[in-house]
């Protein structure tokens, strides 16, 4: 049971009759009690005439998924199964991060009928956003006292990572096709394999002319080449302690998601097989054996539920995890953070096991604030900050050098630049035939 503002106003209006009819204390007190009695009776009658909020059946229609930053419509169907006409305010109790805005709506439902309450959700956090209950507050004909009940109507919506980096995809696919034999620009290198013969056109590399075929066909023929296909790419995501750090107002983990998605999209276009693994001390997400459109869908789906865990990454288990995915030679992309030497000993210890069998790329976000701080030297405090920043950059450089010495490749860039930089490195490796 609740009160309305109208009831409060009605109680306060009792001042008028008390002042009017009450010249002395006794008469005024009498008027006070009469007024209170009238008001309470009105409230009680109103409450008794209000429709029961318990006699409402709730059904929910929700899309299963939404990309972060986009809006969806949540539909709530309310059926009045009671005997009275129901006039109510309904609160659909979404989590705040579901971005429901003002989630109270007025409905009037005649008996036995059904009404739709729709709510626009704009979630502002990745993951699963939930709603458990719907609260219905019905008012009586006078609108003085209300009845209120909370109904169980669970629902959930999965908010997928936004994949902003997909804007880089067309240009990278174009560069990937340049590697392929389909455009006039021919790139020939170690990692290419013979594709087909075709007639010479102006601009082709004369070194590609196949003289035997030219002799057979009585026309100048050139060989075309295409990059290797059907190679394995394993994307390993570090979801441990360091992935929670916020760089440029974005957690490292989300940057890693963007980079992984761009790389996966590119790789599936290039015809390679992608496996995705998110790991800290146990597997947080895994996508294996998917290709084409299903690959990205499965990846964003598993990424949606991954949050940084406040535990140390178990690097010793990583080679085993990679081995369980593939025993062939593969490109292993490790998305982690390169910090001080002390924090990276685990990674450095297991890298030889990985590089012995695979081509390894270690990708890490570089904090642009650190680079900026190293160049800002206005006063005493800023110089000390610059020194600390130089120190941090030096640590990164040292660890990167150690990683390169162990035979792996390093990609570091600011959060916005990391996904395209990683994609470029992949294209470069592919062109060089190191997959």
């Amino acid at each position, binding site marked *: 049971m609740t009160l309305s503002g109208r009831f*409060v106003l009605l109680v306060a209006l009792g*001042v008028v009759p*008390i002042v009017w009819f009450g010249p002395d*204390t006794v008469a005024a007190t009498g008027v006070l009690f009469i007024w209170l009695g009238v008001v309470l009776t009105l409230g009680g009658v109103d409450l008794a005439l209000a429709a029961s909020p318990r006699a409402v059946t709730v059904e929910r229609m929700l899309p299963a998924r939404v990309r972060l930053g986009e809006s969806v419509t949540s539909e709530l169907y309310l059926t009045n199964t009671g005997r009275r006409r129901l006039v109510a305010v309904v609160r659909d109790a979404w989590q705040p991060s579901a971005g429901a805005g003002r989630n109270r709506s007025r*409905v009037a439902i005649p008996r036995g009928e059904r009404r739709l309450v729709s709510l626009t959700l704009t979630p502002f956090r990745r993951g699963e956003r939930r709603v458990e209950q719907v609260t219905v507050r019905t008012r009586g004909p006078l609108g003085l006292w209300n009845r209120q009940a909370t109904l169980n109507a669970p629902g959930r919506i999965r908010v997928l990572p936004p994949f902003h980096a997909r804007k880089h995809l067309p240009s990278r696919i174009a560069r990937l096709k340049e590697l392929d034999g389909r455009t006039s620009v021919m790139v020939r290198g170690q990692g290419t394999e013979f594709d087909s013969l075709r007639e010479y056109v102006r601009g082709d590399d004369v070194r590609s002319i196949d003289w035997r075929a030219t002799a057979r066909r009585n026309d100048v023929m050139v060989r075309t080449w295409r990059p290797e296909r059907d190679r394995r790419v394993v994307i390993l995501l570090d979801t441990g302690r360091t992935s929670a750090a916020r760089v440029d107002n974005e957690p490292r983990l989300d940057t890693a998601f963007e980079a992984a998605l761009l790389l996966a999209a590119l790789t599936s276009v290039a015809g390679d097989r992608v496996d995705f693994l998110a790991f800290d001390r146990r597997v947080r997400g895994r996508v294996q054996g998917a290709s084409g459109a299903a690959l990205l869908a499965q990846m964003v789906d598993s990424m949606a539920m991954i949050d940084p865990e406040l535990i140390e990454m178990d690097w010793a288990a990583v080679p085993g995890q990679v081995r369980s995915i593939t025993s062939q030679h593969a490109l292993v992309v490790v998305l982690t953070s390169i910090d001080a030497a002390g924090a990276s000993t685990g990674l450095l210890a297991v890298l030889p096991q990985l590089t012995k069998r695979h081509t390894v790329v270690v990708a890490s976000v570089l904090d642009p604030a650190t680079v900026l701080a190293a160049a800002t030297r206005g006063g005493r405090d800023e110089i000390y900050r610059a020194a*600390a920043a130089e120190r941090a950059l*030096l640590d990164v450089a040292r660890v990167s050098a150690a990683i390169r010495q162990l035979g792996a490749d390093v990609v570091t860039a600011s959060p916005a630049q990391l996904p395209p930089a990683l994609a470029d490195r992949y294209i470069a490796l592919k062109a060089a035939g190191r997959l």
Partner: protein
Amino acid sequence: MSVTLDSATDVAANHGHSAGGVPTTVATPTLRALLRRSSFWIFAFAGIVIVAIVGVFLSGGSNAAGRALAGDNAAPAGSMALVEVLRQQGVTVTLADSLVEVRDAVGADSTVLLFDENGYLDGDQLAELAELAARTVVVAPDFLTLQALAATVGFGGVSDASSLQADCVLPAANRAGELLPGGDTLSIPAGEHPLVTGCFASSTDTFSLIQVENEATGGIVSLVPDARVFNNENVTGYGNAALALGLLGESDSLVWYLPTLADLPRTGPPSLAALTPGWVSPVAVLLVLAAVAAAFWRGRRFGPLVAENLPVTVKASETMEGRARLYARSNARLRALDALRVGTVQRLARAVGLGRLAHLEEVVGAVAQITGGEPNQVRRVLVDAIPSSDAQLMALSDALQALEQATGRAVMASVVPAAEAAASASRDSSPPPAERMDP
């Protein structure tokens, strides 16, 4: 937020849902369930209230001392026993709390008992009281009372006699014979006092009962300094009861007067209640109730709170900031400058085309050569100088930056002409490759 008011059948047809499916479960408990669930607390609270009420009733009166000598007080300090006995004897006893009540109750042949423990009455009231009744019994009179009623009588201190014998002409005293020893006494000054009679003498001039006759009105004032004579605890001992009944039961009507605050004269300006209209208090009550209702209106939650588990996010630059503050707090100038120098040297090595692992001397030499600077000066900035103050540290930091910029400019200046020269040379010597391949 929008509500579409299309008909139920349309909605059902569009979404393939039929109305009246599985009934929705309700999370809010019904009133009955709520009562059942909290029945233990309700009963516990009710039990505590009942125990408290019963306890108050059982212990009521027995523990409380009550007002001393009050006619309706059955405690040891009260005088209910005496009053009840007088009533049984046919005396009409009126309990009065103020002089106004006394004035109403007193008759021509009444006796008034006055016990003004707190001294509420002033001289005028006492004088008026003395004239009201034929007989006045004053218990434990204070100085003001003596001044007003029996100016000749003074205080006599506490009696030290082992027993108090009547030994006087008053019939009531003679019937009592002996009185509770050891109470306060009053004294009669030496000399002839024909209207003053003292009984129960402790010494030659101190007495435990003094009767004063008013010459003008003929009223009799009996002064009993020891209040214990009349209370429930002691009235049965010695001749106390006989004295009390003799003094108080002489007429058919007795006014038992214990003054209260009501006897104090009112002074000062009129109170707020007297100045304001009568409806002010009820309006105040109504507004308080309205405020309570408003609090309930605004405070009532619209359903339970929704939990949101927040993600953990840490600023990545925190270790850097922490280290910077450590440097600053410990004035680690050389250490800070070394960090800056290492970064500068690496960038310089890259700029002049030396590898990451180039020796420091090589870098110094190359930089000095390309910028045209003095090698010792470059070496001082890059290696040797030790800052002894923050000003020197800042100067060296600026010098490092200046050196980097100078090197960058020098490298650009030397690279651009060379590249232009190479480009023009290739343009001159070789024709376009496409021409060469024309069949």
